[in-house]
Structure formats: C-alpha cells, structure tokens
C-alpha cells in the first residue's frame, strides 16, 4: 500500500551532472591558497640565495656583483663566523639538554594528579605564553645591577656585583636561563602527555615483581618515552639554533660578540654593516642546518602520531 501522496520525492530525480573536472580538481582548489603561499615564499627565498652569491653591500652599491661562493669562502676563513657557530652550538646544547632534563623531572613530579599538580600544570603554561622577546626584557629588568631583584637574591648567596648579561662569562648563562624559563614548560607539557598515554600494565607488572624503581625508570619508562623526548628535543633544537628574540632583546649579541649566534650575527651584518651578501650567506648556512634537522623531526613526529593513533 502506498503510504503517502508524496510517494517518492524523487520519482524522476533532476540530476545535476557532476562536473568530473570539478570533482577531481577539488583538493587542488581547496588547497590553492596554501599552494600559492608556498610558491610565493619561493621568491624571497630565491632572492636570498642570489644575494648570498653576490658581493652586496648597501654602503658600496657600485661594488655589487656576482661572486659565486666568495661569501661562503670568506665566511669559512673568518674567525668571527666560527665564533658564531660555537655560540649557536653552545646555546643549543645547553638549552636543549637542560630543558629536557628539567622538563622530564617536572613532568614526573606532575604525573600524579592532585589539586596541586593540576593548578601547577596550568600555572606552568604561563611563561610559555610570554613572548620570548618580552621574557628577555623582563629578565633584563630583574637582573639590573642596581635594582634587579635577581641581583639582590644572588648577592644574598654571596655573589656580589654579579654582572649577568653584561659580562662575557655570565652572559650565556643569563640567556640560557631566560630560554629555560620560557621553554621548559613546553617540554613538560609534551612529556606529561606522553606519560599519561603510557600503558599501565608494564608498570603494574614491575611493581608486582618487586622491580627496583631505577630499573623501571631507565629500562621501561625512558624507552617508551623516547619518541616524545626526541620530538621535544628536535623541536627545541630547531628553535635554539636560530634563536634571535631572546638574545637580541637582552644584549643584541654582546657583550662584544659573546652571544652572536647565527641570526643575531646575520642581523648585525645586514643592518649595522649593511653587508647583505654576507648576511645572506650566513643565513643560508643556517637554513641548511635547519632543513636537515626539520626533515628528521617531521619523520619522527609523523611516526609518533601514527603510534598514538593506532595504539602503541
């Protein structure tokens, strides 16, 4: 029995012919803007490569000309360049190493859920939300020789007249501190998420078997956390090796060239010495390093994501 006057709404459907082109082109259409951005960025990138192959100094416009790898060769022969490399490497090793250690420690402390740890977890996110440049300025205020609260604290511990970022010996220490202040929470968040995602069984089994804590930590927990640690470490490495905001805001690379890492050095070359060619060469070297590192990072991260998705 037919149930209603409007038996089938679509007795003879009006069929809209599907545009085969539109269907197949849809993904490209959707991502067109993103594609254009990709393409767009190639222009300045290409220009940067070009500049690095030129003798190009804004103060001597008539000397502008193609010199192939001249900039690079003079870089590698220049002691200040190697100083730059050392500064960047030191900064990277110190920040990544210390932040991983501290971040892991804090994550372990916060692992057990309680009111205190929940509040602290939220509170710890705050430094991460502060612009690194601003964080550096904050610390600059607090390490001021005359009225800085940190200078005062440190004097209580016996370090009178601690020069913080004004002295070559302690400048690196100071900026590393700032970096740790801003970025350790990031590591903590990532590792905490990793910890909370770990399966319980191995740990319960270990407890039942009376396995000592250190064994559990080093042989069970760490290996399971390794992908997260690697992800966090690589991520920070990529940031630290090209650090600009923190160092520039604190000392613009000084005192002298104690803190001249890649980008700060490049900035100085470009805007103080107006040597665009050399600045670009420095940046190309840096880019190469970050390109290699980021490839490693993305592969590792994709693997981590698949793991988290499909279950360990």
């Amino acid at each position: 029995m037919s149930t209603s006057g409007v038996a089938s709404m679509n007795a003879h459907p009006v069929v809209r012919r599907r545009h085969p082109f539109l269907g197949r082109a849809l993904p490209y259409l959707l991502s067109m803007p993103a594609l254009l951005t990709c393409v767009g960025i190639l222009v300045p990138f290409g220009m940067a490569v070009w500049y690095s192959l030129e003798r190009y100094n804004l103060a001597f416009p008539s000397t502008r000309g193609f010199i192939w790898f001249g900039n690079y060769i003079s870089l590698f022969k220049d002691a200040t360049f190697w100083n730059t490399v050392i500064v960047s490497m030191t900064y990277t090793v110190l920040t990544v190493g210390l932040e991983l250690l501290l971040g892991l420690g804090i994550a372990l402390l916060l692992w057990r859920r309680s009111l205190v740890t929940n509040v602290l977890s939220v509170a710890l996110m705050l430094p991460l939300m502060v612009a690194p440049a601003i964080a550096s300025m904050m610390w600059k205020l607090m390490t001021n020789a005359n009225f800085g609260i940190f200078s005062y604290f440190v004097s209580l511990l016996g370090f009178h007249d601690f020069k913080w970022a004004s002295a070559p010996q302690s400048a690196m220490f100071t900026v590393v501190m700032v970096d740790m202040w801003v970025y350790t929470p990031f590591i903590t968040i990532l590792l905490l998420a990793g910890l909370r995602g770990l399966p319980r069984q191995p740990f319960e089994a270990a407890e039942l078997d009376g396995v000592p804590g250190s064994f559990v930590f080093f042989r069970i927990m760490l290996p399971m956390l390794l992908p997260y640690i690697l992800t966090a470490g690589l991520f920070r490495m990529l940031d630290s090796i090209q650090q600009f905001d923190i160092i520039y805001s604190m000392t613009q690379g000084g005192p002298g060239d104690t803190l001249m890492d890649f980008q700060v050095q490049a900035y100085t070359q470009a805007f103080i010495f107006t040597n665009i060619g050399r600045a670009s060469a420095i940046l190309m070297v840096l880019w190469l390093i970050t390109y290699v590192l980021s490839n490693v990072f993305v592969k590792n991260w994709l693997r981590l994501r698949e793991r988290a998705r499909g279950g360990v």
Partner: protein
Amino acid sequence: MTVKYVLRAVALTIVGLFFLFPLFWVVLMSFMSNADILRNPPSPFFNPTLHNYIALVSGQLHTNVGTQTVNYMLNLFNSTVLSAFSVILSLILGVPAAYAFARYKFRLGEDMAFTLLSFRFAPPLLVLLPLLMIFQSIGLYDTYFGLVWVYQLITLPLVLWIVRGYFEDVSEDIELAYRLDGHSWLSTFFHISIPLAKPGIAAAALLSFIFAWNNFIFALILGSSGVQPVTVGAFAFVTASAIEYGQVAAALVFSIMPTLVLATFTQRYLVEGLSLGAIKG
C-alpha cells in the same frame, strides 16, 4: 615515605617559584614608584601606585628630563589588529586546505604539506631580508596588509598542522550520510565537517593568535613606528634610557596580559594544540 613527600613538596615549590616569580615581580614593579624600585634592599612592601599605568595609557611618560610622548596604546592596538587578521586569514586559507590534505591523498598535497611545515622551522631572517627589499619597493613596508601576509608564515603552518589531524578524525561515513541525505559537498563541509572539527579549529586559532602576538622579528624588520606591535614597542622602551622603570614594567605587563588571560581561559585547547596533535585525547 614522609621524606619522599617532603622532597616532592619542596621540589614542587621551587619549580612553582621559579616559573611564577618573575611574572609576579614584574607585575609588582609596575605598581611601584621609581623611588620604591630603586630602593636597596628591594622590598615587597611599598605603596602601590597606578601612576605608571596612567602614564602609559595617556601617552605621557615620565623621565628624568621631563615628559615624553609615546603612544604605547597604538602598539597594543597594532598587536591586536595584526594577530586577529593573521589568524582570520590563516583560517580562511588553511581550513579548506587542511581538509584537502586530510581527505585526499594527492602527491602534490603531501609535498605542499611538507613544504609549509618546513616554513615553521626555517630561519625567518632568511626571507625577511629580501622581503624588506621587496616591500620597500612596492610600498608595503610598515603596513598592516604587508605584515598580515608575512605573518602567514607563522600562523598558516600551525593551522594546517593542527586542523588536518582533526579533520582526519571526522568520520567519512558521517559526511557521506549527509551527502546521501541530499546535501551538496559545500553544505556538508560547512554543516558537518567544520562543526565536528571545531575543537581543533579553536585550538589552532588560539595558538596562532598567541604566536602571532608574541612575534618580534617580523615587525622589527618589516615595520616601523606605524604598525609596531607591543613586542617591538616594548623593546624601544627598554632600550630608551631615562624612562622610569616602573613604566617599563607596566608596558611589559600590558604586552603579556592579553595572552596570559587568553591562555588561562582556554588552557585545555592550548594543551591539545601544543602537543602538536601528536597525542590525541
């Protein structure tokens, strides 16, 4: 057992102090008069004053040599405009693209996704120098328009990265069901796909806003006093000698307040976004 407990408590306290004290102190400083700041030894007991904030808002700053006119409020406005528009543009460009990358496995797509991701890790100064030359020659230097496009280097990869994962989690069956109901692809995208990916889109928007707000080098190079955001503006403050330190502190507080407030109220979204979507729920 009690020893462990005490150690834990001590450790947690030290950690809490280390990360929160600087924020606390800078806020304190912003309410101090110059005399209180310079007092030695420093003391948490003082008469708070709104002096510094009033100076900043009114634009009349006090220095040892009289008053100086600085428009820090303009910097705040600039930050808001730049961040907001960058995020909006990134959402418009990025959400459909994220959908394409999530649903369709097309070769060019994988390459594009990878390239855009690698922008996140490339040294910004590399492209900022040529961009400066370009901008100066086509008149985009020190403009909102110019900066908002360049900010896409920060915000667009983030949106793509985060939102793609959320779209992947939206069941294709649900989308198909909606289409079989008689709705067009576009209708499905707006009524099903996007609403179901809303947490991811929100996380991406929030995180992008914060990252855009916190940016320093882009505006430093491609902008001047016209579009200067608070990060660059604060830097000018700190390096300018003779400005009262309380005012500097107040400027710093102004620059971090928006993101801190945003972060506190959207904490859950932020943690999800920050774990790079690598760890889902």
